[in-house]
């Protein structure tokens, strides 16, 4: 379990995370939603130890250190692979550094996405790079897989197929924390939704609770954010003088 207690992060005078409390138990697929600048990426980077913060973050009861960091993998739209290496060379690098690296999963996903194994990553398309980034995070052998906007630039067919494959291959003890703007698209894939707004967790609901309440994920997000559905018509009316 990853546990965040009173996590606070400031950039200069600006508060990026405000006393965040969050539990990520094993085996959950958690969607992390929020507007641009809400603090999603900062939250993830704090978990990974990339940024200093106030408060405590524990991984299975221990602080996140090089001793246990291999339990967490990370896929980011910024990409964390080496552009000058091929997928095969990445496989060797990961296998050397991460003892639980899954070769079978790597080969399976490479075949699924039909990615070339000997071409340098810098010659891949953006979509292919994203796919490869996600593959690495899933094959590392981590218990907690953190994904920050991993599908930006991928076409919808690839994404949908990928969700299906992902649900099929995930082990019961694997946890995913997925940050994305594609709320409707992942609504059938995630088991829990966490909403962050201006550095604060403002909503946390399980898919089961949503189902029982008869509400959809997108409605939950809109309600939590106090989304004003009339703002489009009001703006158009003000600009054009026409009533809708």
């Amino acid at each position: 379990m990853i546990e965040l207690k009173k996590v606070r992060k400031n950039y200069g005078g600006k508060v990026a995370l405000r006393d965040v409390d969050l539990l990520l138990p094993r085996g959950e697929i958690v969607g992390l939603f929020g507007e641009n600048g809400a603090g999603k990426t900062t939250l993830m980077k704090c978990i990974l130890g990339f940024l200093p913060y106030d408060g405590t973050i524990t991984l299975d009861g221990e602080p996140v250190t090089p001793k246990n960091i291999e339990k967490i993998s990370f896929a980011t739209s910024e990409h964390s692979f080496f552009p000058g290496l091929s997928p095969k060379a990445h496989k060797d690098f990961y296998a050397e550094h991460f003892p639980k690296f899954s070769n079978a999963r790597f080969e399976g996903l490479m075949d699924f996405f039909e990615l070339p194994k000997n071409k340098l990553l810098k010659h891949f398309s953006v979509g292919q790079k994203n796919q490869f980034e996600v593959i690495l995070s899933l094959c590392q052998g981590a218990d907690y897989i953190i994904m920050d906007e991993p599908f930006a630039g991928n076409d919808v067919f690839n994404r949908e197929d990928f969700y299906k494959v992902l649900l099929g291959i995930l082990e019961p003890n694997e946890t995913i924390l997925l940050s994305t703007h594609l709320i409707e698209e992942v609504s059938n894939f995630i088991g829990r939704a966490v909403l962050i707004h201006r550095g604060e967790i403002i909503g946390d609901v399980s898919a089961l609770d949503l189902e029982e309440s008869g509400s959809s994920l997108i409605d939950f997000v809109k309600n939590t954010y106090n989304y004003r559905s009339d703002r489009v018509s009001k703006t158009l009316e003000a600009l054009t003088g026409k009533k809708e």
Partner: protein
Amino acid sequence: MRKPDLTRWTPPGFNVNAEAHFFIVGLAASFLLSLTFIPGYSSARKCLYITYQSTEKILMEGARMADFSEILGFTLYGFYILAICMLGMIIFHYIYHYKDSKSIYLMKRLPKSSELHKRCLALPITAFLICIISAFVMLLVYFGIYMTFTPEQCIAPDQWQKIWRDLP
């Protein structure tokens, strides 16, 4: 002899051949530059003598050889400049992990936390030491030439001490 696998000592995907090529060319150029000591020394030594009847050389009375450090001049500067470039390479290796992707995220997540620093520091520091050692070896060789081939009575005292005083 088996060629050492330098890729394990540089950032993954980094063009180690280009870096090695730069270093070897730089080292060769530094060596060639240092060889300019020889004509400098010959010229200074020549000034100690007068030529009699176009063939016979006679040592001038009271002649003083120019100090070793003076003849050495800038001849070893190639090694020093290359050594500084190698230190600059360290920065380049770290920046590499932010270029075109953020591979720094992966390097920071490795269970072996020293891996990033090993790959960024190992070769530049080795190359830096090779430069400094090469410069020192050439200094010893040239000092040996100076002390061996210069008439003893022409050598000013404290030559060895003067080297360190005049070193950059």
